[in-house]
């Protein structure tokens, strides 16, 4: 009898230890977002888009004097699609792609004083450096987006017509990777306006 109790205690201790070890075990990953800041202009990738006249879309901030840069996550359901623009568009036509709310990070450019230049917008973009977006990334397959829009942070929904820059990551499971994750945008500056609108859309679909 005494031996049996000893065995029970041993088994319980083993089970508790295993449970504690299992429950107490948390994995910590760190993902570094690489926005591809241009050394000369200070602008990240996806912010070099020009309109048909060859003017930077970001120049529009001089008229609007409103600019915010925000980082959010676009959840992609149904699996892990190929990262190419065309494939992603097709995927999101067939599957649910939706923005994860709330937006974890948003900086307003300060246009309250001074001449309207790109400076405050670039400064707002520069604030992103070494900034923590989120300490516990969302589960599932997501894309990380970096959206620049002529809207204040107070407006949660992005208007595609006011988007002046956007870059994104490939669809990934953030809990399963570590290291650098590149934010970029396909296409050349002259023909990327359509791409940034899709990139910044609510469901990653082309707006009609």
């Amino acid at each position: 009898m005494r031996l049996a109790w000893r065995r029970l205690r041993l088994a319980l201790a083993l089970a508790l230890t295993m449970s504690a070890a299992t429950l107490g075990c948390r994995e910590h990953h760190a993902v570094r977002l690489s926005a591809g800041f241009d050394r000369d202009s200070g602008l990240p990738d996806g912010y070099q888009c020009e309109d048909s006249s060859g003017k930077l879309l970001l120049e529009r901030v001089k008229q609007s004097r409103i600019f915010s840069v925000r980082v959010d996550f676009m959840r992609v359901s149904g699996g892990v699609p190929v990262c190419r623009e065309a494939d992603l568009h097709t995927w999101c036509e067939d599957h649910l792609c939706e923005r994860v709310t709330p937006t974890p990070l948003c900086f307003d450019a300060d246009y309250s004083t001074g001449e309207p230049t790109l400076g405050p917008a670039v400064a707002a973009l520069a604030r992103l450096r070494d900034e923590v977006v989120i300490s516990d990334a969302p589960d599932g397959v997501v894309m990380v987006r970096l959206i620049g829009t002529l809207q204040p942070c107070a407006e949660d929904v992005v208007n595609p017509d006011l988007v002046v820059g956007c870059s994104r990551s490939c669809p990934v499971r953030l809990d399963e990777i570590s290291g650098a994750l590149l934010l970029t945008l396909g296409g050349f500056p002259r023909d990327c306006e359509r791409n940034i609108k899709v990139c910044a859309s609510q469901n990653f679909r082309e707006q009609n």
Partner: protein
Amino acid sequence: MLAGAPMLALTASCAGSGSAPSRSGGPTVTVVVAGDAALARQVRGRLGQPLGFKAQLRLASLPDREAPAVPVAGLDRDLAAARQAYVDADVTRCLELLAGDRHLTLLAQARAAEAARVLFWRLACDVAAGDDLAASADAGNFAAMGLSVPPDADVISPEVEARIAAAAPRQQHTLTIASSSTGARVLVDGRWRGCVTPCKLDVAAGDHVIAVEADGFMPASRILRVDTASTVEFDLAPASPTVAAQQWLRRHGAGDLEGTTALNLLAIAVRARTMVLLVVDRRERGRLRGVLTSDGLVLARGEASWGSAQPRDLVRDLLLRAQLLAPPPLYKRAGFWVGLGAAAAVAAGITAALLFEPEVETTVRFEK
């Protein structure tokens, strides 16, 4: 080994071996505790506690040491009177006192010394009376029986011893001795001559006492006039508890405590069909040994550590192993629920370990 150790017996019968079941429904068992006195007292005390299984234990005492031989009534008086009559030259009185086959009766009772005195003094009186025929017969019997001259023979005429020494060797006859139980020791005139039944012995012609003795049987003897080769058969009766106790005491004195024969003798002595002998010996670092016998068969042996085990647990273990006690159902055994709980705990732990996906925290931040 354990000579002189105090002993104690608990007596019983056994339902499993055919006897009536006890009131509790289980077997009734005799438990004998032997060994170190202090430890044996502790064993006794623990056996008095509730058993926890269906059996009845009964306490009985073993007989003490073998009682000294009781003097034969009137023998010493008659011998003293005969000796005095011989000294007084009253041979008629002497012969009257020692007439008959008293010496043979004494031999049958394994009292060779007293038998020698009777025959020797009668021989002396025969010589003193001048009865040459009777003297020759008694001298011949004395020599043939191999008796020794008694120590109080100092007043005897040297002629008496000379008659014994000069007794003509008698013709030898072969006796064939058999018994209902083989292996009994054969004693001729109180002396063992290496014969174990069935066997043959050459015996000088004349009167002899042939006796047989065997453990577990009553001793038997026969006075026999040997004048030709003959066969003697003995039908041995089972030993009475008293005789069995005496036989067991002799074996116990020789250090045999747990042998089959010793156990059977002990069972008879304590009047038990089913008996457990528990031996606790301090020299063996408190080991408790147990032997279970039933109807003359050793059914189980076992031992336990005295420090941790209860004597009743050892008794129960022996009864279970001998199938005299029905084993409890699986779910009622002490270790069942404990083992089941342990197995479930381990299974749950393993399942949790296999199925659990650890929580992952991923920090997302921009490069510098």
